[in-house]
């Protein structure tokens, strides 16, 4: 193992239950600084529940979540985002009635340095800060490749572009750890290829990424390491090559006969 690399996120004996259903059953894993770790698994395996637990959208029944050594459990989502852990959502989630540019500008909330009294008094420092925020919004739009769509409404973008815009909003919150929930679903093949390059750029800028994705080409191409979940448990953990040929993974996705046919 690459034990010399510091651990960024540590999930210890995490359990999430919905009524009688164990969505996550006592799982433990860690995300290392700078890596791209993918969570895969059939529908209902508990991938999104892990995201929700880490980012404070649901309260786990048991377990500890440590980010850079301090507990995230019990914090509200906005406080977790302020520490640098930012997520996107599985279902497209934008500020629909706003322009693309405004969507990103709203995402820059944590970068704003404005005090309420200063706003009400109309201080020049507020105008200065607004200008800086707008510059940053343009930078992010250019980074993600949506600058030509800046003045379109979010809801008027193509589905693939909307998914990109979601990532742009998350990037605006300056994540150290970015959690992407099925970012390429709904993208066409060309958009997926472009998104892979964007992922590389995001990593190049120093972010660690935890990815949930069904698109295996994207997962195998982008990940340093993959964890496969099934029924709330980790059934495999390893490099993309190992996961592809792992019998438990094949059984989870394709069933018992596929394993026998393969061997």
């Amino acid at each position, binding site marked *: 193992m690459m034990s010399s690399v510091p651990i960024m996120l540590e999930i210890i004996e995490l359990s999430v239950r919905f009524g009688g259903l164990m969505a996550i059953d006592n799982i433990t894993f860690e995300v290392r600084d700078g890596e791209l770790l993918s969570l895969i698994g059939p529908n209902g395996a508990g991938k999104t529940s892990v995201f929700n637990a880490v*980012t404070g*959208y649901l309260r786990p029944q048991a377990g500890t979540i440590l980010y850079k050594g301090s507990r995230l459990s019990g914090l*509200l*989502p*906005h*406080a977790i*985002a*302020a520490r640098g852990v*930012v*997520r*996107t*959502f599985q279902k497209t*989630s*934008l*500020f*629909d*009635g*706003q322009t693309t540019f*405004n969507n990103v*500008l*709203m*995402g*820059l*909330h*944590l970068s*704003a340095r*404005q005090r*309420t009294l200063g*706003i*009400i008094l*109309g201080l020049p420092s*507020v105008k200065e*800060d*607004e200008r800086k*925020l707008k510059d940053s919004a343009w930078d992010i739009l250019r980074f993600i490749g949506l600058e030509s769509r800046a*003045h*379109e*409404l979010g809801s*008027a973008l193509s589905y693939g572009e909307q998914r990109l815009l979601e990532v742009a*909003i*998350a990037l*605006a*919150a300056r994540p150290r750890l970015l959690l992407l929930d099925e970012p390429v679903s709904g993208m066409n093949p060309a958009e997926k290829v472009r998104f892979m390059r964007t992922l590389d750029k995001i990593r190049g800028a120093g972010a660690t990424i935890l990815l949930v994705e069904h698109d295996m080409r994207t997962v195998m191409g982008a990940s340093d390491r993959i964890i496969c979940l099934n029924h709330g448990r980790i059934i495999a953990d390893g490099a993309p090559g190992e996961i592809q040929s792992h019998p438990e993974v094949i059984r989870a996705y394709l069933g018992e006969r596929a394993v026998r046919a393969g061997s």
Partner: protein
Amino acid sequence: MTRWKSVLIIGFLASIPLWVTSFYFLHILITTGIFIIAAMSLNLLLGFTGQLSLGHVAFFGIGAYASALLSLGFEVHVTNDFVLGVAPKPVWLSMLFGTFAAGLSGFALGKIAFKVRGAYFVIVSISFAEVVHLVAVNWVELTQGPMALNNIPPLKLGTPQLLELSFLRKPAYFYLVLSTAIVCYVIIRRLVSSHAGRAMIALRENEPLAMSIGIDVTRYLVLATVVSAAMAGVAGALYAHYVRIVDPDIFLFIYTVTMVIMVVTGGKRTLAGPIVGGIIFGLLPELLRALAIKPEMQWIVFGVIMIFVVFLLPQGIVPALEDWRNSRKRHSPNTGPPVQAAPGAPP
């Protein structure tokens, strides 16, 4: 360009007392102006954070009562032996206190009520207004109950020896209301075009997403409520020292409804909406009267017009006008790429 436009509008409004000589009509303009301030404050909550406060009149009434009480002075038995007495204070100070008291109650309500959203918040806000109303009716020692607070002093600035500005006469009061309204408008405009306003709009449009990018939702809801309540409070204080009598009827539900109608017909989410809606709602009954329509018919015609506005322009008048202007711009040549289609543009 826009600066010139606002100078023109303010200049026009400021000239009104010069050519409107009817005190009755000035009175209508003053009460309309006070209600427009209240409607603007409601719009900050309803339009920008998306929360409907159906108890908004509570802040208006708290502002009115607090300001009136402090300017009159009062004595209240805290326990059987201990009497809290407050001597009359200058009116300008009382009005500031009324604003502050309303803002503080907005803070308290916001902290408690924003554990819930939507319909539940509506119910909490209505209940809040009803509780305040009951206090005003029943705490006779403080509020005189249904006997009302009488002889509320008018606003005077300066001293009789030096330069005294009295706001007893209607033209002076008109300018007072106008300048307060302008200040409120500017504050709201600055707020909604800042990052605080964007946070409010973000939580209206998509609360889970807003939280995910670090927006402390409760903080910005409370901020909006405090500013909104304080503005409703200043409107209430202006009202108290204008009509110079305050009774528990100030908390009538119909006043909240009036504010909501002003905001909705004018166009929530726009800065000008409550003003346009307020002018129409305040002046239309008078215009109908001027058209010599029988009094019984006035309100019926008025109601029909309101229903038509809501049916034909569900977004409100101001957004509809903006859409119309945008679509005209688009059809004329030499303008940039077309903006997005305007849904539901009026014919």
